[in-house]
């Protein structure tokens, strides 16, 4: 069976006025189904850009990018949006929950794009919240939750449509050590027990220790990788 994510000769160039900034330079990468990959590197190394490309938030300037056998670098904006809705769950550093919605309603957001009824949406959101240990906080607004709890809600939102891939951009960047460990443990659990494929960008070596594989980027190319085995 091929890798879930296959990247060949991927490059990304930003043009700011007359300036051309090559952020990714002919990158190659395979991510196996059920993998948990941490991308590390200094600021400007291209790790977030690579993550955005894998998650379908941006399009490469050159190269190919396949997820579950589908070439996504060719998709138009609307097609990419529909692809993201079914295949990718996002977890951001600053949670990015909608402040005027309850935890339940935030988790239901991706399901608005499906044909599920209101009752079905509510049920699936409830299950997702229970999975992350927040079943009793469904009606709380984000302002009524701690940072760690908000990130759990964000993870529930990322999981609710049962995506192929979880893309996490500094998921513990805004959390204290204790909350960060909880979140990383949860991600490990999702990977190990539920088979979720996770790609995570992090600055924190301790966070990277929770992944199965760590890849280092510098100046738009991979420089080294390491693999960790965890139970």
């Amino acid at each position, binding site marked *: 069976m091929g890798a879930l994510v296959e990247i060949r000769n991927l490059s990304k160039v930003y043009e700011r006025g007359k300036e051309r900034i090559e952020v990714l330079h002919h990158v190659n990468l395979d991510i196996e189904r059920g993998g948990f990959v941490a991308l590390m590197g200094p600021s400007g190394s291209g790790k977030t850009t690579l993550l955005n490309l894998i998650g379908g*938030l941006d399009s490469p300037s050159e190269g190919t990018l396949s997820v579950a056998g589908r070439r996504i670098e060719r998709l138009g*904006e609307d097609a990419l*949006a529909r692809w993201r*809705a079914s295949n990718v769950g996002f977890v951001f550093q600053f949670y990015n929950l909608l402040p005027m919605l309850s935890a339940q*309603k935030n988790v239901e*957001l*991706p399901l*608005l*794009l499906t044909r599920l009824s209101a009752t079905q949406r509510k049920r699936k959101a409830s299950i997702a919240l229970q999975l992350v240990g927040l079943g009793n906080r469904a009606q709380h607004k984000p302002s009524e939750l701690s940072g760690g709890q908000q990130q759990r809600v964000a993870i529930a939102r990322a999981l609710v449509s049962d995506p192929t891939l979880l893309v996490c951009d500094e998921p513990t960047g805004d959390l204290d050590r204790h909350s960060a460990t909880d979140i990383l443990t949860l991600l490990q659990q999702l990977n190990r027990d539920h088979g979720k494929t996770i790609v995570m960008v992090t600055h924190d070596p301790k966070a990277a220790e929770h992944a199965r594989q760590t890849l280092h980027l510098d100046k738009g190319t991979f420089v080294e990788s390491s693999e960790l085995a965890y139970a």
Partner: protein
Amino acid sequence: MKYFSLVWAALFRRKTRTFFTLLSVLAAFLLFGLLDSVRTAFAVASNSVAAANRLITVSKISFTMSLPKSLYTRIQTEPGVADVTYANWFGGIYQDPKHFFPSMAVADNYFDLHPEWQLPGEQRKAFHDIRTGAVVGASLAEKYHWKIGDKIPLQATMFPQKDRSNVWTFDLVGIYHVDDPNLRGQESNFFINWDYFDEARSFGNGTVGWYVVKLADRNRADQVAGEIDALSADSDHETRTQSEQAFTAALMGQFADVGLIGGAIMGAVFFTLVLLTGNTMAQAVRERIPELAVLKTLGFTNRTVLALVLSESVLLLVLGGAVGLGIAGLIVDAVRTSLPAMGPTAPMVPVGGAIWLQGLGVMILVGLVVGALPAMRGMRLRIVDALSGH
């Protein structure tokens, strides 16, 4: 409908700002409802079915100038004329100048040409038989607690009696009703016998203020009007004959061009509303760029984001507008109930289906206009730039 809770939550994200914006929208549509009620009343008053069959003949120079009564028999014999009657402004005051209502001296057959005024047969006969008899509208009678048999003194403002007295006393012999609620304001009239008036007044004898002509065929209105005016061509009492609708519009236009004034006021109000709500929406979307980016990240397409923002701005206008129109309806109903006789001005019509439809159309149009630019901004935002704060 599944997105409604999302749109609603977005609208009330900043409750205070939304509340004050809703108040502005409410005020604008309250004014719209009230003005349109008055404007429609002016139009309806002269658009009644009966009025469509009537012409009004007045002096070509000014409707305040008199015409000879001798024209009556000449008009009566004109082809196309089914019937003709006449009247003269009396202009009496009851007790206090504040108590103003239209008072007119009318020919015996005046009610024949105004079937919308329901007067019982025996009261018609009494009006004919009793020279000092008066017939008033039901609303007017109710306002001043008049009943059949009352003696009602009016102070003349224009026509003293031959004995130089300004006080004319009339016997109330009839009270008429108007069934059409849109024409209920016509129950504010006070009618006296022209024969008695003409005999007793100190000047202007043998003249009338205007003729009312009933057409045999309304399709020949222009032709008949021209023939009636030809009767007095090149005389010292040239006439202008026109439909009752045109006459009423021209008469009201002498007081004020209600349509123009109303239109100007509403134009200014809605222009201000567009600026105000446009600014609110622009601010609201600007604050929520990262949230819109998150929606796009989750898979909401550009078109869906556009639709969400437009829905929000339309909802803002519809919410405030609907409440404003509702309050306008309540105010109009209260005014119509408490002030049935409103003098020479037409009454207000209820804020009904036509005004609501018009108002709804304006709400949606303004909502789309003010939401267009913010919606485009939301639609065009780049996820990566928006999430990184650029």
